[in-house]
């Protein structure tokens, strides 16, 4: 085998691209490369998620850094012949921004990547996550080596404190302080935990880090274990992430083989092992005390804090829990220094944040941006704006615990404090973009239906309170809202926030409270006028056919699943409202824009 390849083809094998058959693409590439006698010159490497998930499967060709997207198996013979053999990049597989007609050949020129700043995701798409040597070649485990050979545990903690790193799971507690509490807590056995029970709808930051760079998390944990004095760590991994599980298990094996985990790590006499625990699918396990309960083999239910896990956690021992992204930042801070890290971001929020950008935005995917970046930059410069030239209405951050930020506040900087000030939270990084066709009352109802279903049922305000709020919201979307319902939701929401036991209940009303705060007029339209301004709530809209526009082509009648559209050919058609299920199919099939919604 040649050790000197002239070309590397990085094929994304994150969950998104794998489900778009990127594994078949790898097979096809290897077949074609073999057939063209290029096997000694060109290497195909499976990598982790590249972030531009909407346009997968993705291949990046080095050294030219040519970015190919939406690649299918059929494109491979052409790609191999043109680019690999003849050196002519294939234009039709390149990214073409919607506003221009010119394809953009290289990755760094694409707007989606240009404004990003990578720390946690710095290895994405560049290394094979299943090969520890590739991680080491990019400076991996240097931070651990430094922490274990040159630093005392106290110095490590001081470094993390000085960096200003705060928890990336949502609450934003200073990581160094958290470590210090646990280090100073009394106890012979101490534990650290990596929380990878990512459960917010539309969020996949942790999954992607685990899939594309598992060693980064392991290295962070080794450093943390040394600082805290833990001999064992757990990774609590959502079971819906089979690929992350496979890769992290492989990574643990390779690291153990190299003596980077296990006994006498790097010959320094420090022992530390990691085991992986598969979660069974309860959102509440993202809450640290529930997660610990689940690790202990119990039903996941939160318990009162204090005592905090730092004092009494797993099996009553001092335990430190951090989220995947937080652990992922640690090796970089130790290797490059707190000063470097604290130079990025804002006064109170340092470093970068990974967001999964989803919803009504052109470029959906995973982005890492410096703290303090404006929401507008994320949505328009990176996200490429709203599809079909529609208007942006709101951005939801923080998942079911977060809130909706109206378009008028797009210029606020993204940091812990600013988001909190306007009623939302940083959260773990879900960012859902909503356009003018989104009904904010329905959004609030949706998020509440999620927390209602995920409430563990231990404490009464969360269990009963979310049920009542959901019922009230459902009534509003059905046109049965009462004038006092807005006040009722606000008062009940505030009381639930104050009285619930854990973070799930304390934040569950946020989507409702922020939509009332910023979109009260939509609630009022539903309640007073029995109208849904975004034309989403089925009970409040009617489909009619315009007498002027209808040509009597019969297409709507043919497609109506309820068979309630009648009319002779070439005559105006009519919808029988009593049987209409408001599915909207007639509107989508009409070629004359004759179906109107009111």
């Amino acid at each position, binding site marked *: 085998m040649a050790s000197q390849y002239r070309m590397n083809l990085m094929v994304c094998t994150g969950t998104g691209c794998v489900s778009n058959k990127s594994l078949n693409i790898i097979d096809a590439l290897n077949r074609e490369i073999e057939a063209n006698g290029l096997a000694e010159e060109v290497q195909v490497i499976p990598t982790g998620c590249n972030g531009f998930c909407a346009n997968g499967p993705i291949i990046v060709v080095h050294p030219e850094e040519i970015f190919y997207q939406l690649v299918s198996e059929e494109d491979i013979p052409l790609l191999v012949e043109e680019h690999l053999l003849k050196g002519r990049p294939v234009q039709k597989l390149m990214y073409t921004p919607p506003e221009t007609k010119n394809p953009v050949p290289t990755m760094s020129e694409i707007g989606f990547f240009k404004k990003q700043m990578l720390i946690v995701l710095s290895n994405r798409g560049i290394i094979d996550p299943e090969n520890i040597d590739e991680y080491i070649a990019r400076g991996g485990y240097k931070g651990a080596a430094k922490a274990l050979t040159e630093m005392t545990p106290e110095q490590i903690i001081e470094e993390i404190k000085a960096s200003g790193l705060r928890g990336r799971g949502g609450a934003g507690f200073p990581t160094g302080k958290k470590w210090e509490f646990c280090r100073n807590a009394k106890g012979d056995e101490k534990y650290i935990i990596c929380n990878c029970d990512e459960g917010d709808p539309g969020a996949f930051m942790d999954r992607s880090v685990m899939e594309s760079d598992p060693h980064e998390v392991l290295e962070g944990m080794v450093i943390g274990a040394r600082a805290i004095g833990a001999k064992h760590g757990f990774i609590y991994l959502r079971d819906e992430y089979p690929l992350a599980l496979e890769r992290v298990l492989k990574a643990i094996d390779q690291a153990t083989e190299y003596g980077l985990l296990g006994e006498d790590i790097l010959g320094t006499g420090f022992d530390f092992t990691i085991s992986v625990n598969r979660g069974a699918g309860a959102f509440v396990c993202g809450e640290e005390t529930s997660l610990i309960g689940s690790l202990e083999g119990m039903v996941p239910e939160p318990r009162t804090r204090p005592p905090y896990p730092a004092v009494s956690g797993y099996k009553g021992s001092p335990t430190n829990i951090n989220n995947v992204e937080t652990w992922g930042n640690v090796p970089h801070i130790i290797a490059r220094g707190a000063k470097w890290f604290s130079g990025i971001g804002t006064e109170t929020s340092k470093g970068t944040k990974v967001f999964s950008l989803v919803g009504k935005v052109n470029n959906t995917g995973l982005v890492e941006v410096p703290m303090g970046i404006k929401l507008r930059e994320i949505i328009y410069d990176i996200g490429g704006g709203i599809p079909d030239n529609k208007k942006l209405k709101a951005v939801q951050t923080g998942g079911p615990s977060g809130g909706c930020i109206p378009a008028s506040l797009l210029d606020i900087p993204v940091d812990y404090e600013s988001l909190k000030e306007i009623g939302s939270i940083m959260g773990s990084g879900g960012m859902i973009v909503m356009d003018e066709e989104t009904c904010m009352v329905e959004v609030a109802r949706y998020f509440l239906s999620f927390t209602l279903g995920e*409430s*563990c049922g*231990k404490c009464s*305000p969360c269990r009963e309170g979310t049920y009542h709020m959901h019922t*009230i919201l459902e009534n509003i979307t059905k046109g049965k809202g009462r004038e006092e319902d807005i006040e009722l939701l606000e008062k009940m929401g505030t009381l639930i926030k104050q*009285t619930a036991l854990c973070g799930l209940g304390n934040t569950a009303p946020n989507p409702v409270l922020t939509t009332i705060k910023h979109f009260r007029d939509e609630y009022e339209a539903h309640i007073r006028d029995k109208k849904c301004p975004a034309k989403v709530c089925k009970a409040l809209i009617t489909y009619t056919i315009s007498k002027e526009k209808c040509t009597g082509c019969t297409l709507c009648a043919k497609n109506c699943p309820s068979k309630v559209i009648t009319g002779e050919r070439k005559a105006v058609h009519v919808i029988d409202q009593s049987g209409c299920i408001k599915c909207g199919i007639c509107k989508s099939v009409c070629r004359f824009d004759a179906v109107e919604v009111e």
Partner: protein
Amino acid sequence: MKTIILNGNPVEAEENTTVLTCAQKAGVRIPTLCYHKMLSAYSGCRVCLVEVSHRESKAPPRLMPACSTIIDDNMVVDTESETVKKARVFIIELMLSRCPDSEVIRRMAEEYGVFSGENDDVVRDYLLNRAPRVKETNCVLCGLCVRVCAEITERHALSFETRGVQRVVTSPFRKVASKCIGCGSCAYVCPTKTITVEEAE
């Protein structure tokens, strides 16, 4: 020994005492529902919430469950502040909406002024007059039965099943538990008398 300020007065108690025990000794009444002195604290019902702050901390007072909050020097506890009263009444109203004909809940509601207070409160009006019932049961999911069976008789014949509003107390697989010795402890501790003991054949 630790000293806390309870409703403005210093109260001394042994280390590791809960706010609830401390208050009971000082003759301050805090309502409870899921608490029993023989069992571990659960802090699920939230009716014993009190306002807790620390003299040395700038953090604003927080609502904490008296049944599981351990006292500490410089702890300031208020059991009758406006915030506590509002929270307490809200919890009782939620319970009353869940089981409107439970005697113990009605008594609690009466004691804390749920029936005599202002009637123009939208939350009260909704929960007492309009809200659909969550479930046709008087079980308040306090878990006393589950804990007595696990911690006192050590039979583990009862547990919670499913989550959220769907949650119920039941025996394994909803069948007569082979481990049940018919001691009746669960029925005895049940505050709403939802559990009955039947003679087996």
